[in-house]
């Protein structure tokens, strides 16, 4: 799977960082970045939660 963020929607509220800090992070510029766009399948449940809980619906999982 691939994790994507739509920066036209993302406001770096960082809910995703709270749910899965191994996949998402806020850097010094206060912007959210995806650390690993191709995470291990073991992270799927957390990432699905982050996708669901994103207040801007800016995250997506693309099956590869």
């Amino acid at each position, binding site marked *: 799977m691939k994790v994507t963020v739509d920066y036209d929607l993302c406001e770096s*509220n960082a809910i995703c960082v*709270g749910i899965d800090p191994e996949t998402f992070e806020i850097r010094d510029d206060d912007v959210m970045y995806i650390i690993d766009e191709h995470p291990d399948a073991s992270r799927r449940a957390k990432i699905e939660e982050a996708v669901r809980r994103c*207040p801007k*619906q800016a995250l997506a999982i693309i099956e590869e």
Partner: protein
Amino acid sequence: MDDSATIAVVGASTAGLAAAGSLRARGFTGRLVMIGEERFRPYDRPPLSKQFLTGQWDSDRLALPGADAPDLDVDWRLGVGATGLDAASRTIGLADGSELRCDGIVLACGASARRLPGTLGVPGIHVLRTLDDAAALRRDLESGPGRVVVVGAGFVGCEVAATCRTRNIAVTLVDPLDVPLQRVFGAAVGAVFADLHRSAGVDVRTGVGVAGFDTDASGRVSRVRLDDGTAPEATVVVVGVGAVANTSWLEGSGLKIDDGIRCDPSCVAAPGIVAVGDVLRWQNPVFDESMRVEHWDHAFASGEHAAGSLLDPANAGPLATVPWFWSDQYDRKIQFAGRIAPGDDMVVVDGSLDEHRFVALFGRAGRLVGVLGMNRPRHVIGLRPRIAEGITFADALAVFA
């Protein structure tokens, strides 16, 4: 509950949708009915005071994707409100005169904008809660008003004032307390918001109450009379003075109503009945406090939690959350996690109030109870789980030392 069971969700809202989605995800295969007083499927409310009101977004952008998911398999009852409930038999009365007997009920009936006496039906005077409210206000803003007077400098009021300035509309922001958002964040942080809005050209009038509204010959609002004797011109008025939990329809239902629906810590109001979102009152073990929370994130968290409590009450745990919300005003992003009260200690630990970019920690009885960031999202989300763990105020301060 098996596939012959019926669960009704009262309130086609964010919280109701989160509960519905979670019921399906947890394996509920029975009939799922969603009852909504508004004629829309659940939509996202936060943009109503922001992207929708500025005109950047149209209503189709507000749709919540989960509402159209085919595996949700919902029997929609939209445009029909619930008018009564008998908790013992789990029977819901609907505005069209029909009744619905259920095996499970999710109460997601939300809250309504509080109104001021004498404002209902006066052309030009608005509240902002629903899509219809926002569309009516947006039409008035698009007609080129001379001045908008916003009554109440809470989040809705502050966001509407910021949106009006973004549209280059003259705004007066009125509040009886000394600074905006004082009830939420206290005087020192509130002063930052006063400064922010004044810098953007808002006529901020604090420490002054509203005495009444003048109308012109056509009956449309023309001025707001303040109790300091002034009366700013008002082509449009937006009243943002809080929200009231929608519980009047539950009188006589057998449920305990107390500024919300009183539930056990797992969101259960009565056997087979849970409450979620704005209308839920429960004892949150993180703060050992009975609370009702009106934030987007809470709608989601309580909806998902309560779905589990409804399907498996024997194993239902408490909803233990640290409330979290955000607000956007101009180019400032405000985020807050926790639960604070007047009199809490407040220490700015990063940035400064003057530069409108900071992190502030709130402590009570030696414990961290809140973290606020203005254009500093990282520390808010980082400390949120630490609040749940009960980190001391000293240890939280030490993170920034």
